[in-house]
């Protein structure tokens, strides 16, 4: 049991290390959680996939229109229409490289589609507003962090020069230095964040869950005594809340049996949800009463 408690403490410590407080003008401290490296990398991969699919769609559309026209351009004098298409392609690839991240991060959500899906956004590190300059700066640096070494590595695949091995390793090291940069500072800043004064924080959108003490599904009347409610703390209450919201019969039976063992009741069967709802409401009422008197109980181990 103590190892479980230690693991939980460790997890809380890890999360606490990433949490920052933002003081709003109302004097309310609003917790922010710095997005982890994995979330950042996941969002980047998603964005690159979107960019790749976009490029693929453009190329396929062009192939459908007729690539022959495009090839003719490289041989003879291009017709104005083909010329326009080529100009558009060059500009589109330029925009994909520099404009995609810029455009989306300048929007009100401060996040690219990949970041939105993961549930993170860019914010100004000083708590102020996220300015256009900051977004421009952080995205220009992306060029040397990511695109330059990757394009260089891809170009090495084609060539067969004498120094390819050394150059390839140099480019890989270059890429790794910048990719792993966020792991070596506490705010998980990449080079672009550092120069722009930004950071990336978790920004999940949540739905308001239903109030649990309203729905009472049964007619049975459970009464719990002071001593029976005193065995658990806030952590167990939250676990119980999670179990009730998930509404999985097996999990509910297990939890009910565990609680009954702990408080010395005889666990029956067939009325798990009813019992747990009643116990949840009673335990929460008990703990919240304590809160109002300034007494909190973190978990079953605390006094």
């Amino acid at each position, binding site marked *: 049991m103590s190892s479980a408690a230690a693991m939980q403490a460790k997890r809380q410590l890890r999360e606490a290390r990433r949490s920052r407080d*933002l003081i*709003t*003008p109302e004097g*309310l401290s*609003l917790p922010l959680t710095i997005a982890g490296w994995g979330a950042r990398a996941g969002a980047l991969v998603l964005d690159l996939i979107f960019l790749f699919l976009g490029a693929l769609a453009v190329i396929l559309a062009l192939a459908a229109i007729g690539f022959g026209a495009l090839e003719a*351009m490289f041989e003879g*004098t*291009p017709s*104005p229409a083909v*010329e*326009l298409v*080529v*100009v558009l392609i*060059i*500009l589109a*690839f*330029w925009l994909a490289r520099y404009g995609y991240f810029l455009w989306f991060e*300048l*929007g*009100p*959500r*401060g996040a690219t589609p990949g970041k939105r899906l993961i549930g993170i956004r860019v914010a100004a*590190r000083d708590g102020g*507003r*996220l*300015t*256009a*300059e*900051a977004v*421009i*700066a952080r995205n*220009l*640096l992306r*060029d*040397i962090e990511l695109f330059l070494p990757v394009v260089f590595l891809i170009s090495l695949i084609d060539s067969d020069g004498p120094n390819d091995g050394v150059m390839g390793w140099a480019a890989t090291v270059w890429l790794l230095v910048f990719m792993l940069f966020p792991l070596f500072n506490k705010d998980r800043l990449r*080079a672009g964040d*550092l*120069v*722009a*004064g*930004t950071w990336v924080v978790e*920004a999940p*959108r*949540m739905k*308001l*869950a239903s*109030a*649990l*003490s*309203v729905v*009472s599904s049964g007619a049975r009347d459970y009464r719990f005594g002071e001593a029976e409610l005193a065995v658990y703390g806030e952590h167990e209450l*939250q676990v119980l*809340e*999670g179990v009730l*919201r998930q509404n999985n019969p097996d999990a509910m039976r297990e939890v009910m049996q565990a609680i009954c063992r702990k408080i010395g009741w005889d666990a029956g069967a067939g009325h798990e949800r009813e019992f747990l709802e009643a116990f949840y*409401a009673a335990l*929460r*009422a008990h703990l*919240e009463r304590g*809160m109002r008197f300034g007494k909190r109980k973190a978990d079953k181990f605390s006094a």
Partner: protein
Amino acid sequence: MALNLFTRKQAAPPPAIEAATLRSDRFRLERQTDWQRLDAIVTALEKNRLRRIADDDLLDLPVLYRKAASSLAVARETSLDAATLAYLEALVRRAWFQVYGPRTGFLRWLRGFFGGGWSAAVRDLWLDICIALAVMVAGTLVGWLLVAGDSEWYYRLVPDGMAGGRHPGASPEMLAQSLEGTKGAEGLAIFAASLFSNNSGVCILAFALGFAFGIPTLLLLVHNMAMLGAMLWLFHQGGLSFGFAAWLSVHGTTELFAILLSGAAGLHIGRSMAFPGKLSILSAASASGRRAAVVMAGCVLMLVVAGLLEGYARQLVETSEARLTIGIGMLALWLAYFLLMPRRPANAGEHAA
């Protein structure tokens, strides 16, 4: 979506407050209509659908935000409903980003940018611009002197793809031919677009490398200018220095100016990180990074102009005098804009820092 939420809520009202057995749940049921209204407004704001938000909602937004914030403060001390607390925290955080993050729209930002923000940022970087200019001049001289001493250097400085037949020992006629324009405008748009794409890559590289204390930026400037110096020497040998200078100046004054500015922007970041002064390194880096980013946004625009000049004007204008006039005219235009455009009043913009 915003409207959906409203209609759905009217269709299914929240459970009666009296039904809740817990005090904290009653607290929540009393206020959740306001929270959900705020949620709907913030969602609409996030989706940039300003027109779909009713005027009343927009007026109430600050009030609703404060109500939700105070609900959160109270709930933290009285409620143990983890789901509600998490919802409120996420809601207040999202609302905070919308209420206290009033963005200037793109057009307003652009007006501020051209109306003084850009030129002021350029003037702020005067010292870095002077250093970068000195380095560029030195790079040109080095290129010239190296090639003058040993013409083998030419092949090292100028890559084959760029030389295009302009080698040491090439006859003056060949060199002169490379300076001639083309007769028609076909294909020039592609040429201009690819030039722009390529040059802006170089500029952004010069800027971004400033992150490593500015040294790679300086090396990049020296390398690029040494190439120019080598070509200058070559055309000088052919007795074509005036023609080459004119040919170059059409777009060169704009392009080299943009490279100068982006080099200076990179140097500015590197310098402020190496010598942060009274600030911490992080805040010095972010302050200079934002200032330099304004300059960089301008550099990209300058390169669009340079690409058009290089693609069209240089190929279509034939005489050296006309080319030189265009080049010097552009230079005068940029200098006048950067030096004479007044700084905007401090309260009007965010990047006058």
